[in-house]
């Protein structure tokens, strides 16, 4: 029974939501027009309403003309405050900058740029995604401010950005004006790395016969990398370093470039568990600056590499698989 009621309530809210006009973003930019601004008395206005009532009763009871005047002044002030609140939010341009991909379960930080279009300073503009914490900023006339808005992620893949809500209660906190921006933008959410601290498989590649214990070996010279504290002096390429361009270490590897593959087949469990495990390896390998490849479903998806792009490409592949 209760559940049914909750369902009904939810459905009702959805219907209600559908009734409200939202600002749709075109090419990531939306403008809050007069038609998209909604305004209602805030919860604080209850105090104010009680104040006005008390004043009016006092004015009538004691027949005090000035108390009447004060009552009406404060009532008119509320009216003016309502207009100011509305004005504070109307004609803002909202553009959604790209958000950096995050791992599922982490907070995504979406950058939203809000610009004033009416040559007036805007104060205490709050912005938030549905059910998320809001950020408050003031915007100078004709300028824009970046709002960094948190967004909780749950599942890997593309997350459609929920509705963005901009709201304000400036200047008297008596009215709450809000507008909703709907955007087609999606955020890429990487899979959550598995929590099990499974060791990175040591280059197990069933198709390769390489040295399985080789990680960053010292057999083949593969190139230079900038010297880092802890590199063996014997590995420093003094010749290259003497050119005055900084210190370089020679980098060798065994057969890691061909052998360090993370394979779907190496993992166990259901799809999500496998993906989580692969993600764990990719993340750890990148952190250890290893060169790794990724094989999904038996096919080689990514040739071994250790660049940043490679890292993100791997994660994206895992996210969208």
């Amino acid at each position, binding site marked *: 029974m209760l559940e049914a009621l909750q369902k009904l309530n939810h459905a009702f*809210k959805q219907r*209600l*939501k559908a009734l*409200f006009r939202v600002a749709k973003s075109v090419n990531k*930019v939306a403008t809050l027009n007069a038609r998209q601004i909604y305004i*209602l008395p805030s919860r*604080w206005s209850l*105090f*104010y309403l*009680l*104040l006005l009532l008390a*004043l009016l009763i*006092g004015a*009538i*009871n*004691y*027949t*005090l*003309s*000035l*108390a*009447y*005047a*004060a*009552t*009406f*002044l*404060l*009532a*008119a*002030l509320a*009216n*003016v405050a309502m*207009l*100011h609140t509305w*004005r504070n939010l*109307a004609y803002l341009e909202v553009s959604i900058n790209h958000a950096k991909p995050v791992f599922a379960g982490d907070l995504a930080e979406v950058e939203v740029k809000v610009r004033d279009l009416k*040559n*007036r300073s805007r*104060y*205490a503009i709050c912005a938030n995604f*549905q*059910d*998320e*914490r*809001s950020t*408050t900023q*003031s915007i100078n*006339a*004709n*300028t824009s401010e970046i709002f960094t808005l948190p967004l909780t992620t749950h599942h890997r893949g593309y997350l459609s950005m929920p*509705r963005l*809500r901009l*709201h304000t*209660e*400036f*200047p*008297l*906190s008596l009215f709450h004006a*809000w507008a909703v921006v709907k955007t087609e933008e999606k955020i890429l959410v990487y899979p959550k790395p598995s929590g099990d601290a499974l060791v990175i498989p040591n280059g197990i590649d069933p198709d390769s016969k390489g040295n399985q214990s080789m990680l960053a070996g010292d057999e083949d010279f593969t190139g230079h990398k900038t010297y880092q504290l802890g590199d063996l002096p014997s590995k420093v390429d003094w010749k290259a370093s003497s050119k005055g361009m900084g210190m370089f270490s020679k980098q060798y590897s065994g057969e890691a470039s061909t052998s360090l593959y993370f394979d779907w087949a190496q993992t166990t469990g259901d799809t999500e568990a496998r993906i989580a495990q692969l993600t764990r390896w990719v993340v750890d390998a990148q952190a250890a600056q290893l060169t790794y490849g990724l094989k999904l479903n038996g096919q080689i998806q990514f040739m071994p590499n250790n660049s940043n792009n490679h890292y993100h490409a791997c994660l994206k592949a895992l996210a969208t698989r």
Partner: protein
Amino acid sequence: MFEGTSDTMTQKTLSSHHLYWLLVSLGSALALHSIHLPIWITVTTAGLGIWRYFIDKKHWALPKLRWLILLTLLICIGLLFSYGSSFGRDASVSLLLIMSGMKLLETKTVRDYILIISIAYFIVASTYVFSQTASTFLLSLIPLTLLTATLVQTSLPQTLNSRLAFKLAGKMLLQSIPLMLVLFVLFPRLPGPIWGISKDAYSGMTGLDDVLELGDVGHLIRNSSVAFRVQFDENIPSANQLYWRGPVLWRQQQNQWLTTESNVPLSHESLMTTGIPIDYTITLEPHNRHWLLLLDMPTKLPDLATLRHDYTAVAKSPVRTRIRYQATSSGQYTLSSELSPQQRKIALAINRDNNLEAISLGQSWAQLPADVIINKALKKFNQEPFVYTLRPPRLSSNAIDDFLFKTQKGFCEHYASSFVFLMRAAGVPARIVTGYQGGEINPNGNYLIVRQSDAHAWAEVWLKNKGWVRIDPTAAVAPERIEQGIEEALTEMDELPIFVRQNATWLKKAYLNWDNINNTWNQWILGYDNKRQLAFLNKLSGEKLSLSDIAISMIVAMLVMMLVTAVLLLTKKQGKPSLVDRQYAQHIKQLSKIGVQPQIGEGSVDFAYRIGQLLPKQAKQAINIATLYNELKYGPLQNNSQMRQSKQLQLLKQMIQTFHRSKA
């Protein structure tokens, strides 16, 4: 509408700056009340505010609940001590102030702030219970503006600088005035009160009492506050005609004179008038008594008045608000050509135990005709060394004897009471009439100001064929009191309130101007009650309006005014671009000639980098311009002095000029 602002400001704690704003605005509301409340209330409330300041400053903990309860108890005891059991107007305001001070001690969140500001608005408006003068109103605008500015600050996570906050608060209050005026004029006024009003609400009101005890009118004479103002339709009658009739005192009890008992029905006295009727309008200040002062003798009464048998006009309930009434009087009249035996009996009754000397003097005249007796008495006052003074010596229980034969110093009530006593002793029916005499003409507004200091007492004697005739024995001693007002009648010894003294002419002039403003204020703002509203709106519309007509017109006018305000506020033209913007716009205009334009959403610095790619030689210049522009436009204003800013603006101008010159 969607839920989901899990983070509203409810729980958000505000900054120290917010607290300072709140403390200052509350302080100003407190200051407004400090003159009429006991000093310890002001000190305690201020102390609570200062405590809160130190809690914030020194990071003390907010007081624990048990301490707050203890403090509340102490304060309640204090209030009980100050006000006793009569919990009325003063005690309520005191309690409200103290409680807002206590609330400060637990004020942290936005919710607390808005609650306390709402209470403070109420506290400011409650000043009007004590005083409704134009100056009080102007003064009360200070805390109103401060509170509004604080409310503005409360809606911001960081406070604005005070200039901006005041500007915004002031602007919003000014924008509220049109709607306020509409509501003020059209909101149907209801005749109050809704419930009973505590007695102390009228404690400050002074006026004539229905008892005269020798030395009593004196306290009024030292009071320069306005009793009423009179507007005459035609000329203002001469000063010796201006007797404003108040309670008539018939009964003598020791040194007291009292009105007739209400349980003794006396027939209504008859009145015949012959003179030209005088039409006038009186605006009576509240005095918490029934009297409606009218010029001797009223022929046409205001609606709200009834006449007593002795021609004292009274209202149904004590006059507790300023009221206006119109009346007609006539200076030539015959009042009560016949005297009933009952009336004669009361008008001759004297206490024969005391004042034996006066009784025997009166009795020695008893055989003479009435008019001779009157002259004899007046001659006594006139020819013996009687002095008119507001500081008469103390009198014993034989007050009249003392006055007539020993001290011979006194003012109107001494003269009137001893005259009436002598008349009664001599067998002439007589009574004391109290009221006001004269008044001050305000040339600025052509109306008469009658003050409490114009309070007066005179006598009426009943003569055959003439009825009750007014005799003013004070005139026999100090005729100038009647002709020119009280200040003329006194020797310098007597201290009078400054406005009643004649020598301070410039002050008096300023005062008369001020009184004129106050009179207009009283008539149109304070006196705008249900009657006045109806009369005004009837006149305005040319029709007879009902209450519902007014209500409907108020709603219509209110909606229209709200619409007008909305249109004006929301479609306001965009402000002029600032000097900085104009300079930069020039820069962009010049650049567009060579085909470079900022893209939508492109910041000025990004744009400068792009220019740099097109004009590598001027890359640095372009970036410098963009940087300075940004600093001037968005940099923190308070860090830059006005001087420095204008210098930098000059620099920007030069840089832009150099840029475009070297480009060509």
